[in-house]
Structures are given as C-alpha cells and as structure tokens.
C-alpha cells in the first residue's frame, strides 16, 4: 500500500509518521517534497504535523498555497483517503478541503499532554475499525489547536456526520470539543491529536491499541477496495 507523506519546509512529524506507516503497519510510505508533483500511484496521503513555514502568517496558511495542494485536492476528489494530523489538519482547513478554522488554544499556550478522544464517526477510511464512542488515549501537542466553527456550520457538521473525533473533556476550548472532522464524502480526515505518537506500547503509557485502529482502518479500507 503506497502512502504519500507530504513534507513542507518546517514539517517535523514526517519522519515519525513514516516510521509508523512502514515499521509498525508495513505499508509503503514515500516522502513527497512540497514542490514536486504528487506521484499518481498513491493509495493514501498523509499530511504530518510540524510548523510548515514556521507558522508564519497563520499556522498552515502558506503550505495550503503550495503547488502540491492542487494535487492533493485532485486526489481528494477521486475519493482517495487523506489524513491531516496537527499542522496537516491546519493545512487541510486553510486549503478549504475541510471546514472550520483552528485558533489559539484558550490557555494561549502550547499544550503537550495526553487526552482521551471518543469516536463520533466510524465510517471514514481512518475509523472503520472502531466502535462508535470508543475511547482513544492520545497525545496532543499544539499552540493553535482550538477548532472553531459557527453554530450553523456546527449543525451542518452534525447533520452530515462530519465530526470524527471529540475530546472527552474540555481541553482547549474547541467548538463542541471537536478534535477531528472529515469532508462530506468522509475520505478527507483532519485531527489535532497525534496518532503516530500513540501506536507503540513502548512510548504510550496508556493503551496503544485504540490509536492503532486508525491505521488498521486504512489497511482495512484498502483491502475492502481491492
């Protein structure tokens, strides 16, 4: 399974994601540098975390205007699974692939801590192995992680089942405690927490199985498509 890991100047979770995709889940990841065209043969695309362009202007906004994002949009239209984590989520939001916006945490500080998510939508290519409302212990690490949408959009997200993950308590002031959303088709998913930091028991002090289901869902999705 070929997974593109997109690297922008300032991405810093690309190597972590690559390791997890290849060494833990035995997929075939490849780094895709931001100014090169996206390879045609990809089965999925991941936008990893980091500080693309040093978070200048606004987190994710410069990367969202990179040439490679045009290719990502084409893949999204084709229904290819696309996952944005942390800065990757910010980029997907800034590029219009996902609704909403990510604002400064209400503490006004960078926050690095373990949280618990609940799965709100188990129909996406990254959540199909979960039970609804299943809990995932997972770390966050961000300064601008407060997901915000206006009330009307929020209702729409709920109606169209676009809320994928919620925090199980108030973490950073996100609208409705939203931690991750998807597009209307469900193939583009963005989330602030870092699943790549939670899938190995050696570094996960809680339980690494739930996070692993995010990647197993992707594997399952491919199996189902083939």
């Amino acid at each position, binding site marked *: 399974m070929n997974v593109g890991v997109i690297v922008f*100047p*300032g991405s*810093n979770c690309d190597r972590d994601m690559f390791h997890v995709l290849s060494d833990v889940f035995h997929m075939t990841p490849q780094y895709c540098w931001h100014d090169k065209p996206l390879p045609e043969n990809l089965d999925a695309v991941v936008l990893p975390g980091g500080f693309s362009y040093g978070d200048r202007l606004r987190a994710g906004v410069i990367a969202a205007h990179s040439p490679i994002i045009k290719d990502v949009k084409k893949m999204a239209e084709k229904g290819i699974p696309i996952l944005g984590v942390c800065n990757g989520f910010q980029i997907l939001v800034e590029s219009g692939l996902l609704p909403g916006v990510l604002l400064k945490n209400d503490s006004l500080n*960078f*926050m690095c801590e373990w949280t618990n998510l609940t799965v709100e939508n188990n129909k996406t290519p990254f959540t199909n192995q979960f039970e609804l409302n299943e809990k995932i212990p997972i770390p966050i*690490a961000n300064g601008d992680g407060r997901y915000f949408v206006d009330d009307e959009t929020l209702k729409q997200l709920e109606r169209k089942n676009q809320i994928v993950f919620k925090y199980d308590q108030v973490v950073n002031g996100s609208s409705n405690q939203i931690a991750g959303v998807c597009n209307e088709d469900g193939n583009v998913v963005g989330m602030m927490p870092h699943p790549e930091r939670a899938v*190995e028991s050696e570094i996960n002090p809680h339980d690494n199985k739930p996070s692993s289901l995010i990647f197993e869902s992707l594997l399952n999705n491919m199996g189902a498509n083939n």
Partner: protein
Amino acid sequence: MSLESHELEELKLKIGRDPTSTELQIVAAEWSEHCSYKSSKKYLKLLPMDGPLVINEKGYDSGVLDVGDGYVVTAHIESHNHPSAVEPYGGAATGVGGVIRDILSAGTRPIALLDGLRFGDIEKDQHAKWLFKNAVKGVADYGNCLGIPTIGGEVEFDECYSNYAMVDVAAIGFGKKENLIKNHAKKGDLVVLMGGATGRDGIGGSQFASDSLESENRSAVQIPDPFIEKLIIEAILEARDEKLIHAMKDLGGGGLSCAVSETADALDIGIEMDVDKVHTRESDMHPDEIMVSESQERMLIITDSIKLIKFQDICNKFRIECSVIGHVTFDNKMHVKKGEKTIANISTDVVVNATLLDLPSKKPKYLENIEDKKSFPVLSDYSEIMLKLLASPNIASKIWVYGQYDHEVGIRTVIKPGYDASVLRLDNGKFLSIKIDGNPKQCYINPREGAIGCFEEACRNVVCTGAKPIGMLDHLQFGNPKDPEIFWTFLESLNGLTDFAKDFEIPCIGGKVSLFNETTNGSIKPTPVIGVIGLIDKKPLRTQKINSGDCLIMIGNTKDELGGSEYSEYIHKFIGGKCPTVDFSESKKNMNAVLEIIENELIKSAHDCSKGGLAVAVSELCMTNLIGCTVSLESVPGDKLDHDKILFSESHSRYLVTFEKKNIQNLEELLKKHNVTFKIIGEFGGESIKFTADSKPIIDLSVDKTQKTWLNSLKEMVMHA
C-alpha cells in the same frame, strides 16, 4: 568593549605591530572569557575526559559517546544567561538554537533538549515572574518549532537571581558512527557560510557575556528564527549523507571571528576570507561588525569545489542562503579581506590562545560559620509545613512548564518529563536516560559538597530508571572570577566534581564555564549544573501503578543535614547549617544495588530523595499514583534524629523503592548481598499521606487535595499577580 590595556600590549608584542581595527575586534571577541576560558581552562583539565565509550575527534563542539551497534550519542550543554536576563524570550530561544548547532556540527541529528531555568523569587518579584514566563515561552517556541522534544530539566527560584536569569540548555544528538564528521581540510578547500543572513544583532555578545550585567545592552541579544534552524538541520543532514562536508562548525559566541579562527586552529590550516562575500541583512555593515556579529542560525562548512555544487543544490532545495566566503590556505593565518584590501592577517595561534590566567583564590569570609547548625521549633504536627513545601515554587509540580514543551515529538520519549530522569529509545534497542541537576543553596553553603551533590543527584535520577551513568556534562556558573572569594568557590566545586568523576569513572564529555553572572545586586550563588547520561541495555524501569498493599523501602541513611534544604530556607528563611555530603563508597553501593534490583524486575518504581527530603519524595509517589501511604519515622534508616530532620533533611544516596509484597524476600536478599542500609518504612493504601512517630500521626494529608495543590500551585503563581 575591547581588550584590556595589558592585553593590547601583549597582542602588539605577539604580532610585532599595531593591530588593525578588525584584528582588534577579532581578538577581543576570542580573548573574551566567554570564548577563551582564560580564567578556567587550566583547571578544567583536571576533569577526566576519557573513557571506554568516549570518542574524541578534533574540532567537535559536543561530546561523543559510542553506544554500540555502530551508533553514537552526542551531548552538550550551554547557557544563555546574560541575554535571557535582558530579553528572556529571545535569549532563551537562541540559547536552544546554539546548543543544537553544536550537536549538528558533529554530524548527528539533535533528538532531545533539557533546560535548567533559574530566576528570582517569583512569589514576590514581578520582574522574576516576567523573566520566567517568557524564558519558558522562548524555549518552547524554539524547540517545538524544530520538532526536537524538550524532555526534562529543572526550574528553581532563589533571591540570588533577582534581576537575572539563568537559562541552561542541554542537547542530545544521535547518529551512526560512520556518519560522524571527521573534521579535515586540504589546501584550496572552500569555506562556506550557510544559513541566516549576518545582521547587527548580537554584536559583541561574547564580551557582553564576559562582564557583569549592568546595562541592558539589547543589541547584544540575538534574534531567534527556529524555522531557518530547522531548514539548516535538514540541509546539513542531507549534505552529511551525501558526504559533502569536510569540516563544520557552528557560529556561536564571537561569530565569524571565533568560528574561522577556531576551525583553522583545530585543523592546523589557514583561512583566507572576504567579508564582502558574506550575505548580510543590511547593506551598510562595517567589516568589523560582520566579523563579530552573533546573528543566529549560521554554520561554517568546509568542502571542495566539486562537492560545492551539490551542496548548493541542497541549500537551494531548502531555500537557505549560502556564500563561499573564502578558502583554505596552509600558512596557519586568519586572513580577512574586504575585496582586495587586507583588513586582518593574523596567526590563528595568537587569536585562539589567549594567555591563561592564574587568578588568586581565597576562602570566602561568609563560609566561616555558615555550617553552624540551628534548631527549629519542634512541632507535633508538620502537615501544614508539608503542604506549604509542596506548594512552594521549587517543589511544586513543573507541569506548567513542561506542558508547554512538545516532549513527545520524535517518538523516542519512553519516560516523559515529571519523573526522576527522562528516557529515550535508541535505534539499536538500547535506551538513554538523562537528567540535569543543580543546587545553588547547598553549593553556597559548601561549594565542594554542593557540587558533588548535584552530580550524585543526577546519577541517582538516571539510576532510578535502570541506567548506568556513562557520561557527564558540567556547566559551571559563577560570579566574577577576579574576586578571589568567588574564584575559590569555583575551584572548590570543580575539585569536588573531578574527585567524584574519577572515583565513579564517569567521564566529563562536555561542558561550559559561565562567569561574571552578576548584577548590581552582586554575584549569584555558585550554580554548577550537572547533566548525567545513562545507558540502559535491556529495558528501562517504567513506573508501574502502585496498588494498595504495596510496600516502600528506603535505601540509604538519613542524616542531620538540613543545611541548604528547602525546609530550612523556604520555611524558616535560614541560610546555613550542615549541607549534605556524599559518602562515595555508600553512594556506589547504593547505586549498584538499585541497578540490580531493577534489572531483576523486583520493584515497581524507584524514586530519588532530594529537594524537600523524605516527606516530599513519599508525597510525590502518592500524588502521581493517587494512593495513600503510611510511613513510620522510627523505621527510617539512619541516626536517631528529630522528626523534622528525618522528614526534610536532603541527605544524598537515598532511594525510595516500591514493590509488591510477594517480592520481599528476593529483594531483601539482593539488598543484603550489596551490603546497603535499607528498611521497609511504609505501606501504600488509603487516601492520605501519613507519617507517624510513636504510632501518632505527625503528618496527615489527603492525597487528592494535596495533589491538586502541588499540580496547580506554580501555574497560579505565574497567572495571578
């Protein structure tokens, strides 16, 4: 700022003429205390630097340890005190940046940071609070942006740092041994400056740091840009993989002057360079400014003309500027030109080797009666004092600090901040355990024993994770060395560290001396900060959940040593008394015993007893596990002492070990075999932290309530005026 008059005479004598203005600037930068170590260099040689795992190569700015299977770990420590005292955000951030480039210049990827932060009394002093808040933000923003986890450190507050800031940063690197840069150069090789543009920030920074802090010289503070640093890291590592780099050095204190002269001297070459070739931020910079600017995020690379093309391609890929500023010669001279005109041409040997000083030292007067003991009022209940200690800024949880640091990125952090030492996994299946410790209160009372104590405490911390100490970093921070009394404290600390390092065969793999840490209020207390790196071959001890019925053993003796303790200073506002001392043979026995019981998987956790003594250490176990514990003071090993001494003395070489009852026999047998002093002092269960004497409770606190106080206290201090 320039050379002192006798130094100028010496320079004239050495070069046989008057120096040019550029030469004067270059030499002033390089002969500053900050770059030359002229006061301390003679004595630093005492420290043992070699060991079976130590790899020494010329021109390295960081220590290198062989961790087996073809892998190496690099480590270094730096401070950025003066800049942080003036502009805490930029000072702290650029402190992180500088030490990371030291790791990078060996050809290894930086994989972790630790920070030691010290400020005045934040409970009273609004300025100290401002410095603290912004220094933490500076470290966070820089490290987080780079994706290098800040995995541990320490924070301390003491009035001796009023109007000042101590920002120490240690960095750890990791890589393949075969990828280490073997610094070399041949005639005609090119000298390349890559990274950020040279600007007017940080002009004279190293001289600024070599004087006491009297004026707020903001132009001497460098401006951070972590985004460029991140690009430099990736570009350099790519160039390393392509084997394009012959030699490399970070630009730090003294800027180009120091990087060029030190590189030339280390490689036994000369370098001819042209300041017009340096890419600058402003077009009208004077050549002297270009030579001493300490603008950040710059690296000096030596390569040849064929490799240069590939190197430039990599720089273009990352959109980093790089300029060929000169070439390698063989006359051992640093020849600086502006276009065709020579503005400096001076032997590197003269530039790099400032005349070392032999400063006088004298035992300080204040030490005469300082170890006289004082008795404090005897109480029947210490609960209130204990709660006060747990909420005090030095003992309260530092989660407000490390919660702002990305300590997970890089997915190596096995043991996270908030425990004894942090542990990283390495690619060869081994683990690295790291801790930094300082204790100015004890170092003030007894500079020798205090420094040894910091060293032993850092060792204890890594031992608690199951790691054997394999290397040490020392950061020696003192006031003005020209004051004989201060210089005496420096020598005492250094001698103590040397004795401990030799006896325990732990090589010093890197370090730094920072002097002139003074403000108009006077000198700081002696503040050596010691980092210890430990290696775990199999697996680290990851603290397991403590359950009701689990037991607590104390290894080591509690002594009448309240001097420099938090109890003495924070509660009773008394500076003095007998400071804890380390008995080397007891220390070694205890360390070995703890390592073996961990290896035999007989225990659930090991915790070091330090700040706040036994009382705080037991409370920390209870609060992190949310379980109560009852400890009987009579069973605590050591002399028969007053209750407050048993509870709060900060005697060294002590460990708290938790275990399941079923392991008791095996555990006792092993500990007896090692001939260490130990006793079962308590059992876990219930919902309160209880200490009893003669079966009567003298401390009784609810775990739940205490934990909330301990966790939130620091945040509340920072957030509320």
